């Protein structure tokens, strides 16, 4: 479950010294120039620590020329429950839109990855913790539906605290909806590569994110069903170090590989080539 105010601002926004020229690495604590970090897609050039990369950065990293033919950008949240916790849901959405420049917590569309056409989706974690409400669920559903129609493989990057509380039960229903769409997509025997970023928990983890033909995670990404705080409260124990990190999931057989960010494009390309080799062989190249 996500909550925007408990979400730390993305690495790009904090710990700037002076006019944002220098940043302190969250891994090694060394001071790095903001330009160096940005040029390296938020991976520390000294220690390799992966800071959060915004959706725009992922587009630049994975999509050829950073170009995405965006689908269904016009979808925006409604307020079906008239939800308010002191501040209305509408106000929170407006604040998130202003902060991120995005209309909602995911971008989807068609892109090219090393010359291969793909259906592409990436969560905008800065938008209310990447939480999945009706729009996010609808866009993921449309991504699978349209990719099936256009015979595109799907590469989907998840980074989400889970279902969006402010849309209540309708957020929960997005889990069923998106997975049902994925099932239909799967019948076309097109690849689904699920990339789990930091953090991926709750309703997103417990729906499509672990159902990739291949599941890939970034180093040290926090991935799990329940958040660590919920588990600690339930079992009244301190959690072991490394619990729910990508390395823990790899050890327990839940993901196929941990791939460093700077190798991500190459690895995804290779996987797509392998999985589509038989399909390619049927049609003249």
């Amino acid at each position, binding site marked *: 479950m996500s909550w925007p105010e408990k979400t730390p601002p993305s690495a790009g926004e904090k710990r700037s010294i002076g006019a944002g020229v220098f940043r302190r690495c969250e891994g090694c604590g060394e001071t790095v120039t903001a330009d160096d970090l940005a040029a390296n897609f938020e991976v520390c050039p000294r220690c390799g620590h992966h800071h959060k990369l915004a959706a725009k950065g992922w587009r630049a990293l994975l999509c050829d020329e950073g170009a995405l033919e965006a689908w269904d950008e*016009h979808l925006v949240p409604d307020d079906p429950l008239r939800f308010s916790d002191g501040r209305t849901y509408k106000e929170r959405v407006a604040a998130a839109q202003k902060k991120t420049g995005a209309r909602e917590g995911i971008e989807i569309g068609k892109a090219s990855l090393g010359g291969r056409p793909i259906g592409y989706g990436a969560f905008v974690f800065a938008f209310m913790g990447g939480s999945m409400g009706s729009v996010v669920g609808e866009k993921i559903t449309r991504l699978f539906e349209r990719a099936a129609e256009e015979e595109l493989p799907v590469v989907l990057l998840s980074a989400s605290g889970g279902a969006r509380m402010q849309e209540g039960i309708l957020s929960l229903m997005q889990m069923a909806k998106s997975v049902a769409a994925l099932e239909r997509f799967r019948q076309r025997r097109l690849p689904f590569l699920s990339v789990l970023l930091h953090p991926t928990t709750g309703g997103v983890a417990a729906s499509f994110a672990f159902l990739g033909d291949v599941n890939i995670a970034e180093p040290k990404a926090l991935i799990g069903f329940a958040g660590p705080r919920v588990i600690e409260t339930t079992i009244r124990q301190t959690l072991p170090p490394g619990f729910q990190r990508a390395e823990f999931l790899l050890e327990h057989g*839940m993901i196929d590989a941990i791939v460093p960010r700077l190798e991500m494009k190459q690895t995804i390309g290779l996987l797509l080539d392998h999985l589509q080799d038989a399909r390619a062989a049927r049609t003249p190249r």
Partner: protein
Amino acid sequence: MFVLPFEKPIADLVEKVRALRALAASDRRFEPELQRLEEKTSRLAREIFADLTPIQKVQLSRHANRPYTLDYVKRLFTGWVELKGDRRFADDQAIVAGLATYHGRSVVVVGQQKGRGTKENVKRNFGMPHPEGYRKAIRMYELADKFGLPVLTFIDTPGAYPGIGAEERGQSEAIGAALAAMARARVPIVATIIGEGGSGGALALGVANRVIMLEFGCYSVITPEGCAAILWNDGARADEAAAQLKITAPELLQLGVVDLVVEEPTGGAHQDHDEAARMLDQTLWQTLTSLDGLSGDELVDDRYRRFRALGSFLA
């Protein structure tokens, strides 16, 4: 018997009705009085329960005497054979599953099971399944699909268990895979929310062609306590959260998340398990037979359309 403060007047009257009914069984002179008392009880229950707040309904849905899955299994079905285990790790007793006969038809049954009393609750983990429970459910959905048997699920869980072992064994993957298995099953699926419908842990039994809900059940993306803790850092404000989240049967019917609401006996299902099962039986059977004649593909499409339509956004 456990009694919630707001149901005390009703519980007392129901108790008197019971005593009088026993008397009337041997002496018919008590029958007019019994009838009067029954009417009074039902009138009072209607009055009190008409004004219940959402959090009071949540308390009813969690009532310690509420009928659980196996209480319904005993009353609705014959020929029950319980099937255990996920064939991978263990048998999770927070989910019961098996084959049964329902009005002459063989069906696959899957439901979360809470325990009565501390000892059984520990065994049932308070109805909070681990991944092995969901993997047992998946096995059942696939068994049903293979042999063309309808699936009846009974939802009653605070949620999937948040613990170390559950995470190690892939709680997320297990739930996601259960959603997928339900989505593709080429057989009729009818889900009934008999008590608590706690988030993804409930939904893993809920991707059905039709979803029935008992009058005093609830179904939510997060517990009101959890929601209040996140919103206000104060779990005690669960009443406000329960009202915001819209988790009661009439609200969910309006949102299209459930298709049918089944009334409960006077004072709630926990006052009369037999009557609660009888009242559910009518709707459940009608709902199941309403899906007769649909082919496997049509059933999958029907389920797809049902969930495809859920969500509210502006374009």
